[in-house]
């Protein structure tokens, strides 16, 4: 499994965005695998009873999607730190887009800092974050 070489990365490099249809079954599968059974993560009616517009994506799942996106670029086992802020609701059955950019390189640790975010289909950043990745 290839780890991206540190010497091939420069500050300002953009990570190829990943856009995909984020559907309700995807969210339900995550909720089951995480043992979280709040209605807001499994059905629209239950979510509306909680005052939400419909089913929402767990913040932890957003984090997981971001982590997978970053390691798809850097290689497995490279993530050292991930900080995320949940700014808005990430609703399923929509297309989402995960994006990232390298903001800093550290020669001593051969690691990079990255800004990362998830956009919904209105191009609003529902999740923003920063991460540290150790490269090869």
């Amino acid at each position, binding site marked *: 499994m290839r780890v991206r070489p540190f010497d091939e990365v420069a500050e300002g490099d953009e990570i190829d965005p990943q856009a995909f249809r984020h559907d309700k079954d*995807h969210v339900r599968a995550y909720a089951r695998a995480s043992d979280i059974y709040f209605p807001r993560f499994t059905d629209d009616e239950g979510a509306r009873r909680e005052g939400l517009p419909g089913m929402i994506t767990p913040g*932890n799942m957003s984090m997981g999607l971001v982590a997978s996106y970053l390691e798809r670029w850097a290689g497995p086992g490279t993530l050292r730190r*991930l900080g995320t802020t949940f700014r808005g609701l990430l609703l399923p059955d929509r297309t989402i887009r995960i994006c990232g950019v390298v903001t800093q390189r550290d020669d001593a640790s051969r690691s990079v800092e990255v800004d990362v975010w998830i956009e919904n289909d209105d191009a609003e950043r529902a999740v923003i974050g920063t991460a540290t990745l150790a490269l090869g």
Partner: protein
Amino acid sequence: MPLDIDPSILGREFDRAEHEPVTADALISFAIALGETYPCYIQAGPELIAHPTYCVRFKGRKFFPDTLPETLRFQMSFDAGKDIALGVPIRPGDVITIVSTLHEVYEKTGRTGSMVFVVVRFTMTNQRRETVAVVDNRFMYKGLQA
């Protein structure tokens, strides 16, 4: 309503929970639910390790210390975000212990008014006392003052 936080409650352990051993099936189903394809996250065997965010599945027995003011403990909060610092990977058979501390309480003023943030830190270790992750859970309360 102003909050009166006793600084001595910060950093003090208020909960400790030991979880059942991690299973390979749980690691694999979690990673697959995130669309993972790397074999180290989805194939059973000696190389299997947890997806980096698997650690957020673990919870303590109680989420807030009893010493936190009631205005916070019993008011609805929002999950504002998390910070994870990763240690050694989690593997099948690991027994994870979580120590919970109240890490920080602070106020911010945003477009919608003042907000109070409560940060609960989970320090997670395995049965060899190696740190697998430190997770800061940030909860936001609207309409309060620290």
